[in-house]
């Protein structure tokens, strides 16, 4: 049954792969604007046709993200004065900073419980808006990088950020969200604007009936690989994910765009085989993590699962072990971070797999856009290493990978691991970091490592045992999320600009073919070696020692 469930998912993703991939390619290459878009650009007074150099593109992106953080921060701080606040007070400064950064960076790390802290307006007009636009920002950066490969001899012009952002939301994310939200409502996800009110249960106890525009947020939460749930239990909550059917719909949504973008990439660079190769690496890594996580949870090693008879702690009956493991692998392999079961209570090897997924750098298949650009950076590393072996200048898709390109790529590869390891190291030596750790020993280290891996990779899922609602974690994780998002984006756009200004060189017999299984294996190996060399010491002290004990 576990296998049949996975086959249903694969079949659904395969069915939409080619049409959606082509649609997204058209979306970002068509010179025509929709009528509603022309009105939109006139209303917000931007020129959607000006081709931007990478520096200008980055400025637009940073300007937009900056006001997004400030706007959301203000909204969270002033919640008490907003309509539909359900009587909740404003967030404190450190908490508002953390949440504003978290949602703007597509991380959706949450230190608060939605049902006890956030009213409906903040959820839909603050947090869910960032679910849309932060995903569209990731998409825009990926498309800009693909244009860098596809274009030849421009003066570093890679598109127009405002147009990419608008089209990503209006033509892709919003229509898909509308369909998904209606499917989810039909499946039992609530969608209303009622407050939380008390009712009397069958045995006379008091329980609160919950309200909220949940389905509309749930749809974009998964589709945009955001992950920030309106309720604390996230997709384990029956009002966010009521049935095994909605569960597979949500998994499908969070994998949909990341697994389809390689097709868009293949079309835009004029060689679909290149897209298949990138998809092959993503799918291969993902298949291994699904298999390992499913095996670990079904086997149920560890004292608590053994005592109970199965690893059902933190899992819902309707999803079971397999449905929980599949969701966990999908949410950490993309940068979603939604959870339908509590990862902290997973078996030690199962928890290790989901942690490893994030440490891979969110490329299997990664977040919306972020997964594709992360994987393309690894592909550049792979051609570089292959070039070193045979002693010729490496090329990828007709672009020479020289010293400056490699400098950008190397910085990209180092940024996020540095944030994770430095953040974790600080947290386990200073007092305000140590007080948040719930469990002593290796599991405590896993909790902290998971938290910084989640923040710096913009995942947002948590080993819930760590208490992160303190100023220390709120501020340091906010910094990790911010740097983990925008430093890589700046490097990718710089790379895109350099590539776009290069003239494409024709392939010769000496060019490494980048569409064949050998290359797929090479990129996969690069991903594993980079993460292995970076993280084996800390993994040994955390999940590995735990698995062995």
């Amino acid at each position, binding site marked *: 049954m576990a296998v049949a469930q996975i086959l249903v998912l694969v079949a659904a993703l395969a069915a939409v792969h080619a049409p959606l991939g082509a649609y997204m390619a058209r979306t970002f290459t068509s010179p025509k604007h929709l009528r509603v878009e022309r009105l939109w650009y006139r209303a917000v007074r931007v020129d959607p046709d000006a081709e931007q150099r990478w520096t200008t593109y980055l400025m637009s992106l940073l300007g937009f993200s900056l006001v997004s953080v400030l706007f959301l921060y203000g909204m969270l701080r002033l919640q008490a004065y907003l309509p539909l606040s359900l009587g909740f007070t404003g967030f404190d400064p450190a908490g508002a900073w953390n949440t504003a950064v978290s949602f703007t960076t597509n991380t959706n790390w949450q230190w608060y419980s939605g049902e006890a802290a956030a009213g409906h307006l903040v959820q839909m007009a603050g947090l869910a808006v960032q679910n849309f636009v932060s995903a569209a920002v990731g998409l825009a950066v990926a498309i800009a990088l693909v244009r860098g490969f596809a274009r030849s001899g421009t003066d570093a012009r890679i598109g127009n950020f405002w147009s990419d952002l608008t089209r990503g939301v209006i033509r892709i994310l*919003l229509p898909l969200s509308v369909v998904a939200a209606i499917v989810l409502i039909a499946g039992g996800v609530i969608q209303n604007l009622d407050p939380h009110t008390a009712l009397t249960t*069958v045995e006379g106890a008091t329980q609160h009936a919950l309200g909220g525009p949940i389905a509309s947020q749930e749809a974009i939460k998964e589709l945009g690989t955001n992950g920030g749930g309106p309720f604390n239990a996230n997709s384990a909550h029956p009002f966010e994910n009521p049935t095994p059917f909605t569960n597979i719909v949500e998994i499908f949504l969070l994998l949909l765009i990341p697994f389809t973008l390689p097709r868009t990439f293949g079309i835009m660079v004029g060689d679909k085989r290149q897209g298949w190769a990138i998809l092959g690496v993503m799918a291969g890594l993902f298949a291994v993590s699904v298999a390992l996580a499913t095996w670990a949870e079904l086997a149920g090693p560890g004292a608590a*699962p053994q005592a109970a008879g199965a690893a059902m702690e933190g899992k819902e009956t309707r999803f079971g072990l397999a449905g929980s493991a599949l969701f966990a692998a999908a949410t950490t392999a993309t940068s979603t971070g939604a959870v339908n079961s509590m990862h902290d209570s997973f078996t*030690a090897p199962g928890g290790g797999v989901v942690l490893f997924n994030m440490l891979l750098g969110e490329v299997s298949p990664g977040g919306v856009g972020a997964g594709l650009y992360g994987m393309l950076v690894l592909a550049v590393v792979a051609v570089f290493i292959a070039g070193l072996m045979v002693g010729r200048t490496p090329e990828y898709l007709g672009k020479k990978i020289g010293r400056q390109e490699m400098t950008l790529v190397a910085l990209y590869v180092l940024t996020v691991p540095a944030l994770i390891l430095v953040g974790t190291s600080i947290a386990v030596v200073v007092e305000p970091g140590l007080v948040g750790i719930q469990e002593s020993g290796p599991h405590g280290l896993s909790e902290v490592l998971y938290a910084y891996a989640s923040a710096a990779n913009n995942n947002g899922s948590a080993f819930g045992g760590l208490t992160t609602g303190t100023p220390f974690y709120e501020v340091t994780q906010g910094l990790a999320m911010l740097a983990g998002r925008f430093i890589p984006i700046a490097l990718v756009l710089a790379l895109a600009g350099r590539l776009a200004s290069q003239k494409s060189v024709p392939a010769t017999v000496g060019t490494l073919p980048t569409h064949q299984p050998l290359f797929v294996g090479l990129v996969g190996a690069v991903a594993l070696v980079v993460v292995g060399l970076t993280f084996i010491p800390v993994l040994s002290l955390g999940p590995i020692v735990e698995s062995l004990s």
Partner: protein
Amino acid sequence: MATTTVASDLATLTRHSMAGLRMLLAFTLVTGLAYPLAMTAVGQVAFPWQANGSLVQADGARTTSRSDAVGSALIAQGFTGEEYFHPRPSAAGDGYDTLASAGSNLGPLNPDLVATIEERKAAVAEEEGVDPADVPADAVTASGSGLDPQISPEYAAIQVARVAKARGLSDADVEALVAEHTAGRDLGVLGEPRVNVLELNLALDAADSGAATE
């Protein structure tokens, strides 16, 4: 020279930020207000029961009115009476608290969790009069949400005798109701078979009151 560059960079960023602010406001109107409100309208018209929380009345009938409801078919209640089927343990607040949905977040090697599981297992085995080895895992573990509305068919099966005895019904009658409220895998392959505890308990109450009026 350096200061002029920084100043001009800041001026550029400010200009882009102002365009960004106008963009953000437009997105807030469309994706933050129009979209969720339109979805709310669709939900309220096309799927009113689901959109309002799958509420049920004491007689088991569906309702969209909170004042008529005794709960949601999707949210666990902390049944303890011996005439009712019991849900899974809950880590949400003090138990089944919808304002504090949560799992325990205890790790797989946590000694406190192991001890809690052993205690629960002994308690369930005693209450249901079964061997501890026959107590299924979902009966002794807290769910992810703390609001899991369902239990496994195995956990329902070991509760049948107790409920039947408390209500003066035959085991077969109770088993028939359990079967009626057991859902198989969605589409035959998705998720796991499960028994909805609140709906089953309301059906038991309805069966009782039906018997009383006969």
